[in-house]
């Protein structure tokens, strides 16, 4: 076996230029594939983060009855007890209680039904990226009188700008409340309907207008890591409430994540398949060139398995040299780019619409390189099969005299 490996290794370097070109094509193909994979993961990661920090958070708690009606009477039962639990769960990185309810917003020129989120300025900035989504104006602060933040599309519809007055009305426990607000900020978001139908006001203002205090319709929680999400979900004891993870709230986001993973590996597979054609072609040329040598080996008694292994080793070695170099090269690139980021400001506007931002930080998931390594080995083995069959079909008496 060792001799076969030695022969295969030396055979590779019989035609240095040809083998080097095959290896180089493997290096470039694999490096480009992995880099693409890293960038795609980077974009996906940003997209997920954007969704989680703009409207989902990792875990949300609501009253069981709250549902889509979003009536103000459905507060989280035993809010203080739930909040006390959250302070004790180490997997909770941050949380923010919110009042969330349906209402209407009106300017002198137009009106629109909206979802209003009354947020705790300090706590919410730890679980939401609303500040980063602002394209005009400023975030909510304590100094101003009744500030409100609305989406760009809603601002256009209402035909209002920063500093203009709008009236918000809603029902609080059956009593209609109507208040004036000043537009403090305008945000942009790709989250479905968020720009048209969501407005943010201060929690204090809601409490002042309604007389409600120390309650919440929603608690948004950010976990210390993604695996910690389910731990938090399991640890919270909140009778009368529902505790939902981001995957419960937006299963399509998780589905996209899974699909992205599959698509990326399909593309990687296609790249490797294309490279395998190059290897097969090279090995067929090798078999053609070495017909006489193979004929001799068969004549003197080398069995079919050893002939097959000889071709297999040579093919796998070509992949085994090109694969790791390509993987190492791309890993170094991804590590570097993960630190520096890729500035895509030329298409930044488009990306911002998706809530992604103009700098992408490529990354690889744990086990990706192992999976790709296995794919490279499989491709190497598969590439050997056809040339090996060609070699095995040679008739020794004819092959040994081949010109």
């Amino acid at each position, binding site marked *: 076996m060792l*001799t076969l490996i030695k*022969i295969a290794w*030396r*055979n590779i370097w*019989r035609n240095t230029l040809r083998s080097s070109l095959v290896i180089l094509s493997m290096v470039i193909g694999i490096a480009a594939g992995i880099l693409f994979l890293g960038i795609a993961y980077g974009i996906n990661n940003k997209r997920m983060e954007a969704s989680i920090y703009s409207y989902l958070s990792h875990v949300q708690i609501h009253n069981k009855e709250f549902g889509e009606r979003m009536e103000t009477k459905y507060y989280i039962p035993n809010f203080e007890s739930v909040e006390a639990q959250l302070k004790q769960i180490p997997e909770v990185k941050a949380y923010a209680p919110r009042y969330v309810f349906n209402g209407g917003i009106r300017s002198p020129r137009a009106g629109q039904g909206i979802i209003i989120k009354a947020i705790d300025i300090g706590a919410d900035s730890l679980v939401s990226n609303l500040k980063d989504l602002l394209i005009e104006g400023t975030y909510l602060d304590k100094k101003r009188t009744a500030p409100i933040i609305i989406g760009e599309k809603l601002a256009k519809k209402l035909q209002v700008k920063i500093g203009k007055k709008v009236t918000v009305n809603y029902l609080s426990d059956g009593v209609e409340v109507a208040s004036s607000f000043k537009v403090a900020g305008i945000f942009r978001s790709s989250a479905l309907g968020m720009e048209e139908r969501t407005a943010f006001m201060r929690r204090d203002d809601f409490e002042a207008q309604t007389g409600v205090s120390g309650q919440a319709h929603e608690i948004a929680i950010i976990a210390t890591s993604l695996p910690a999400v389910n731990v938090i979900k399991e640890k919270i004891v909140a009778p009368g409430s529902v505790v939902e993870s981001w995957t419960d709230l937006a299963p399509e986001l998780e589905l996209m994540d899974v699909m992205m993973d599959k698509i990326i590996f399909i593309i990687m597979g296609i790249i490797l398949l294309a490279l395998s054609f190059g290897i097969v072609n090279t090995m067929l040329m090798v078999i053609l060139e070495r017909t*006489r*040598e193979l*004929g*001799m*080996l*068969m*004549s*003197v*008694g*080398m*069995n*079919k398995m*050893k002939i097959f292994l000889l071709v297999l080793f040579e093919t796998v070695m070509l992949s085994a040299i090109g694969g790791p170099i390509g993987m190492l090269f791309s890993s170094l690139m991804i590590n570097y780019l993960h630190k520096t980021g890729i500035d895509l400001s030329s298409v930044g506007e488009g990306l911002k619409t998706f809530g992604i931002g103009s700098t992408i930080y490529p990354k690889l998931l744990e086990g990706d390189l192992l999976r790709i390594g296995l794919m490279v080995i499989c491709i190497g083995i598969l590439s050997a099969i056809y040339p090996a069959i060609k070699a095995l079909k040679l*008739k*020794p*008496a004819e092959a*040994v*005299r081949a010109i």
Partner: protein
Amino acid sequence: MPIIKTQNLTKIYKDHSVEVHALNGVSLEIEKGEFTAIVGPSGSGKTTLLNIIGGLDNPTEGQVTIGDVDISNLSDNQLIDFRLHNIGFVFQAYNLIPVLSAKENVEFIMLMQNRPKAEMDERAEALLKAVGLEDQMHKRPREMSGGQQQRVAVARALASKPKFVLADEPTANLDSKTALNLLDIMATLNKEEGITFIFSTHDQKVIDRARRIVTLEDGVIVSDVQQDV
């Protein structure tokens, strides 16, 4: 008991609808220790006869017995194994493994036979010494002349301790002096160690050295003579 016995060997090649009779009922017996040349013009069936005796090709009809084994009945895999342990081959174009040294080429056959490392080392060195290449052992084929390569091929053929060696036009690619030198080596191995050699050739130098000359024409043995050398 003859070491090789062929009975009524017929080989017909089919080229589209045309049948070519390469051998027509060849019966031949070769004893151990013979130094036999199979001669004849091109297309007379020399190579076909050697291929069939060497188990590289099957006869259309007839039987080949090596020792007490009828190789016509062996499967492909059995034939490969039989060749490995019983037959040495020397080819016209040397056909050494270019990426191995002379010694490694000789050892390679023994390696396939799973011989112990020490035995391989010792035998490869002894054989290369016997063919006069003790100082070329670590050279690769491209660093050697044609004659030297063919001597390595002879050493390789003997490495497996075969019952006999088949040499197909072994001197065809060599100049006269080198060819004579090679023949001397093979004749010595034949005389001193009793190794059976069977050549196909139309090289007069080989014919002159052979002790038995079998002449083929149109796939038929037309003469079979012994000569003093």
